[in-house]
């Protein structure tokens, strides 16, 4: 048995050959992507200048992906205004969707057949038809209902009557359409969350005298959140992008603003990239928010909460440093 200087037996780690091949392949793909993103194309023009008596000419090139144009439009007021509308749409539609989804989920789990049946029917309908169709229907709702009025149903008593087209702008139609559609998806997510909470929790809450509403609010919901948050984060990110469909009914959100600009100057690709980059930026911010939200609602579920990225980075760095014997004190300090 061979031993190290200090008498301990040397451990030889397993060599992961397959993993190394995978890493090599991944690096090649990354290199290709970086290369093409940063590549330049000749414009067909040449630039010449005189050096002494001779003229030196070279081809003029430009970014394949027109980064200069992409970033020029990145902060123009049209794009920023579009971004604002996109955010507004996302927030309102998700708020409507989450509230509606919670109500539908509670209804769905009700022992009353009429309540659970109507919740089921709602989900069946709004999940079963394309969201684009729903957008178009709400946009054109004034065809079906030219006037909307506030009154008592079936009795032809009305307190207030308005023309649908004057109160229902495309933006509002989009909010309603996206929100109602989202409600159907959120209800399934919320239902899964509510069902994930152990029945014993409900019994315990009941046994200390809580009524159904209190049990739901103080015991079931907070624990259901742990299951509801991750897919809801997904839904927010998905909604951010789905809101671009609203451009079809004339809402000038982020994509709408980009298409408006490129229909005038034909810089199609750069503006699509501008919009995409903004979507990526917002998505990134949302993902970070989701991480901390999940961490918050996981409290009590795990003996030790997962480390934040910052803590993990510090831990990894300490691990690397500990490979160097004389740096052990530094690694220890970081670990702490």
């Amino acid at each position, binding site marked *: 048995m061979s031993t190290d200087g200090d008498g301990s037996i040397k451990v030889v780690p397993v060599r992961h050959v397959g993993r190394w091949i995978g890493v090599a392949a991944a690096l090649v793909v990354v290199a290709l992507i970086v290369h093409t993103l940063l590549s330049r194309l000749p414009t067909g023009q040449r630039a010449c200048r005189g050096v002494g008596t001779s003229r030196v000419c070279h081809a003029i090139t430009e970014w394949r992906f027109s980064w200069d144009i992409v970033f020029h439009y990145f902060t123009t007021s049209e794009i920023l205004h579009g971004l604002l509308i996109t955010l507004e749409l996302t927030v309102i539609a998700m708020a409507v969707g989450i509230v509606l989804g919670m109500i539908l989920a509670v209804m769905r789990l009700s022992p009353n057949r009429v309540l659970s049946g109507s919740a089921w029917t709602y989900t069946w309908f709004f999940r079963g038809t394309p969201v684009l169709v729903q957008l178009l229907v709400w946009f054109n709702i004034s065809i079906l209902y030219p006037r909307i009025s506030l009154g008592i149903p079936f009795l032809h008593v009305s307190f207030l009557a308005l023309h649908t087209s004057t109160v229902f702008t495309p933006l509002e139609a989009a909010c309603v359409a996206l929100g109602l559609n989202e409600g159907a998806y959120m209800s399934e997510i919320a239902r899964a969350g509510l069902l994930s909470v*152990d029945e*014993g*929790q409900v*019994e*315990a*809450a*009941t*046994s*200390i*005298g*809580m*009524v*159904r509403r*209190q049990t739901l609010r*103080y*015991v079931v919901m*907070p*624990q259901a959140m*742990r299951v509801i948050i991750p897919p809801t984060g997904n839904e927010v990110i998905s909604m951010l992008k789905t809101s671009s469909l609203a451009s079809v009914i004339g809402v000038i959100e982020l994509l709408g603003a980009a298409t408006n600009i490129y229909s005038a100057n034909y810089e199609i690709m750069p503006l699509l990239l501008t919009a995409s980059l903004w979507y990526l930026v917002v998505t990134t911010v949302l993902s970070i928010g989701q991480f901390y939200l999940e961490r918050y*609602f996981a*409290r*009590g*579920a*795990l*003996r030790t909460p997962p480390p934040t990225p910052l803590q993990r980075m510090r831990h990894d760095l300490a691990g690397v440093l500990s490979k160097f014997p004389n740096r052990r004190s530094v690694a220890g300090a970081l670990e702490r």
Partner: protein
Amino acid sequence: MTETADTMVEAIGVRKHFAGVEVLKGVDLAVARGEVACLIGPSGSGKSTFLRCINHLEKHDAGELLVDGQLVGYELRNGRLYERNDKQICAERARIGMVFQRFNLFQHLTVLENITIGQVRVLRVREDAARARARELLERVGLAGRDGYYPAQLSGGQQQRVAIARALAMDPKLMLFDEPTSALDPELVGEVLDVMRDLARSGMTMIVVTHEMGFAREVASTVYFLDAGIIEESGDPREVLAHPTSPRLQNFLSKVL
């Protein structure tokens, strides 16, 4: 309702069935104030179901069930039984403590919050008063200083003691224990039984479903042997457990002792 004020729980011919299977076939029992009643019997004999009927977690189908002189879940007015509404039933329940086999502590709340939430939300006690009471109770169950722990960070025995404190925080007039030590590792059973013993000594009325015959013999005023939905035998634990008369109890005791 001619019962003396000394009877805390009275059952007369209580029946209950689940999907055609009759689990309780007419249970009669009377537990006096300050008494400790132990329910023993084989699994599936209806012990837990009966216990759950007492605080209306299950609705009994027939018979009379009275807690502190009041019908559980119903009100007798003008010769008719009126079903009580949710709010009334919950108010009744708040005064009946229940301890579960699987502890059922609120996982998302700290130990202290587990004990204060009922006081604050149901009894409308002020937050700081509730906290003071919770600390007092934690000390009583031997867990002083564990305020900020989450249930998942405690052992089973500790969790069950917090659960007892949570029930006591509601100032119950009656405590129900549904196999409180069955989910515990053997070495943790003692600490929970100690707390229950203290509670019994302090004069709390308790109904305990248990398999701990030693505890029943020592603490119970009356032991009830439930088998196949009826009370087969009952009486002083030293008498009943030492000299069982019914063959079923003899058979049961030969298996558990």
